[in-house]
């Protein structure tokens, strides 16, 4: 049985279990921290930096989803500084690829867009990168649009950790990083894919979607995936 410790979140004393992350402790205490790459039940990777928090005693902003709690820790979840950095993180995601919400299947149901709205982002302060990216339409039922992928790796993790099919991987590095399927094959040719659709449902944006939906029609159904992951012995 892990040891119970106490920490402060936004000044409030709460108890947490040794080994928990700040995010888990905060959730348990009913505190909201914005997240994007995190998906309950899957391993946490700290890719998006939306969940950054301030921790007393260090200048570094730490990702709540991967930072373990420590006894006596004092965490701040909201501050002007955090809002500023969360905005920067989001803006950089937007300008990196081509997010044209107005014509996107996920418009109105997109976690990226929702976060932008809640953080009050109305325009970008950086130039758009406008990369020329392909759309993989080779799968019978699903579609991958790299233009809308934020490389959160939720799909990679759910496929490996829950479905056990290991279809997805990230290839290349830095700005050239791309999601890839199989051994760099078109998705429709990857025989390991079981067509379960879990990657589609956990994808926070319109990057992975069911085929055939028009603008705004793709509503992700992922409520049961966390439960499934827990039963598989995930986090």
């Amino acid at each position, binding site marked *: 049985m892990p040891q119970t410790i106490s920490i402060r979140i936004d000044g409030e004393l709460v108890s947490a279990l040794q080994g928990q992350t700040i995010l888990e402790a905060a959730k348990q205490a009913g505190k909201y921290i914005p997240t994007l790459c995190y998906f309950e039940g899957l391993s946490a990777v700290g890719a998006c930096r939306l969940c950054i928090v301030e921790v007393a005693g260090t200048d570094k902003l730490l990702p709540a989803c991967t930072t373990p709690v420590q006894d006596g820790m004092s965490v701040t979840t909201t501050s002007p500084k955090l809002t500023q950095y969360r905005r920067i993180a989001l803006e950089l995601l937007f300008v990196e690829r081509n997010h044209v919400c*107005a*014509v996107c*299947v996920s418009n109105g149901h997109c976690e990226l867009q929702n976060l932008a709205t809640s953080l009050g982002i109305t325009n970008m302060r950086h130039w758009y990168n406008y990369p020329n990216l*392909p*759309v993989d*339409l*080779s799968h019978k039922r699903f*579609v991958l649009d790299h233009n809308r992928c934020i490389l959160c790796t939720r799909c990679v993790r759910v496929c490996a950790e829950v479905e056990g099919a290991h279809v997805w991987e990230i290839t290349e590095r830095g700005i050239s990083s791309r999601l890839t399927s199989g051994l760099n094959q078109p998705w*429709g040719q990857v025989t390991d894919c079981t067509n379960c659709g879990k990657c589609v449902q956990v994808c926070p944006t319109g990057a992975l979607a069911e*085929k*055939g*939906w*028009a*603008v*705004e*029609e793709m509503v992700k159904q992922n409520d049961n995936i966390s439960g499934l992951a827990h039963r598989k012995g995930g986090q």
Partner: protein
Amino acid sequence: MKQLTINHVSRIEGHAKISIHLNDEGRVTSTQLHITQLRGFEKFTEGRPFYEMPGITSRICGICPVSHLLASAKACDAILAVKIPTAAHKLREMLHCAQFVQSHALSFFYLSSPDLLLGMDSDPAKRNVIGVIEKHPELARMGIELRKFGLQIIEGLAQERVHPSWVVPGGVNAPMQPQLRERLLSELPGAVASTQQALNFFKSAIASFQEEIDNFGTAPTMYAGTVDRKGSLQIYDGTLRFRNAEGAVVKEGIAAEEYSDYIGEASLRESYLKAPYYKPIGYPQGIYRVGALARLNVADRCGTPKADAELTEFRQRFGYPAHSSFLFHYARLIEVLYALERIGELLNDPQILNPRVRAIAGVNSLDGIGMIEAPRGVLIHHYKVNEDGGIVWANLIVATGHNNLAIGNSIQQVSEHFIDGTKLQEGMLNRVSAVVRAYDPCFSCSTHASGQIAMKIQLVAPDGTVLDELCSR
């Protein structure tokens, strides 16, 4: 030689520049219409899933998004190779009629009524919709109400006013609510009455525009428009018919898939807008006009009683076919009446509330063409896709494109008649802009540029100096 350039003709959609060249006597020698923007939807949709096209292409224009949406959805239906459910077909037609009402109301009451109600030579500072509201509050109110009625239908059906996502490949994504039907049925008679009043007003005012009627693009041309099987006006799902200047039907029953056998597209040096022409006759003799006037010239009748009564009177007054482009305004009002009557018929159709509104299918054809009548004329979307449904090629033939040649000729005619370079007056240049507005052109969609309203006219002297400039914006 002097040159006059009208840059940014105001109160039209999009950007355009007109150059008017003068000789030493100050008379017009030649005119040119340059369309200066290109946005290239055809290019950047490459590789996108075809079913995204209605959403993407309806972004071409903020004024008639519904037209692109429908033309695109029809092209997608063809890729799915399905016949969409009857209710969906009717609902789409109703949406389209509503679009006609709002778009024509915008063109007439907001964009052109300042010229028509206040006069071509009236004070330019007041020659705008505010001036109209001051002088003719009743008419202005009717215009606003009519546009609102059209928008309300679009909003009611599609839950969104500007870029509705309700129209999808295979049909529409939700059936009509009975309450909406009831509400529209109760408001319809008021809209019809307003339109009839506006028509009566326009008919009484038209006598004072004889000079414009005689000189605003009166050169006879062929006309193209879609009609139903009986030859009546049909704006959502007709087949294409060409009627020549003498009034004889040249060709009819052209289905969307056959468009390229009859419509050629010439690229012009001075503008990004391509110039379509009637192929069997060739370019440039195969010039034809589209849009409200063309549709009324092409169809045998409207097919609804009130509009047909107006059409009969129209033909008695101006002939059949009627050639003056000034009459586009008149034709638009008749079409508003038609669209409203048609909305009434559709609302009373027993099928209209049927919940089966969407056919689901995959890629069953690698080629899809959709053709409809946009408020400004025939609109064609043509896509080719790969086996997976990715767009490999797209072509859009837009209404203003068809009228390109005719607009150019009309500018020439109006300039020659009204412009005297030795004693230039604002009203002369305004007539040049006004003839462009008569076509209600949408250069933003024809060049697929962003939907701003701007145009520039330049008057240029024989030595190349710009004598005068009329800019809006």
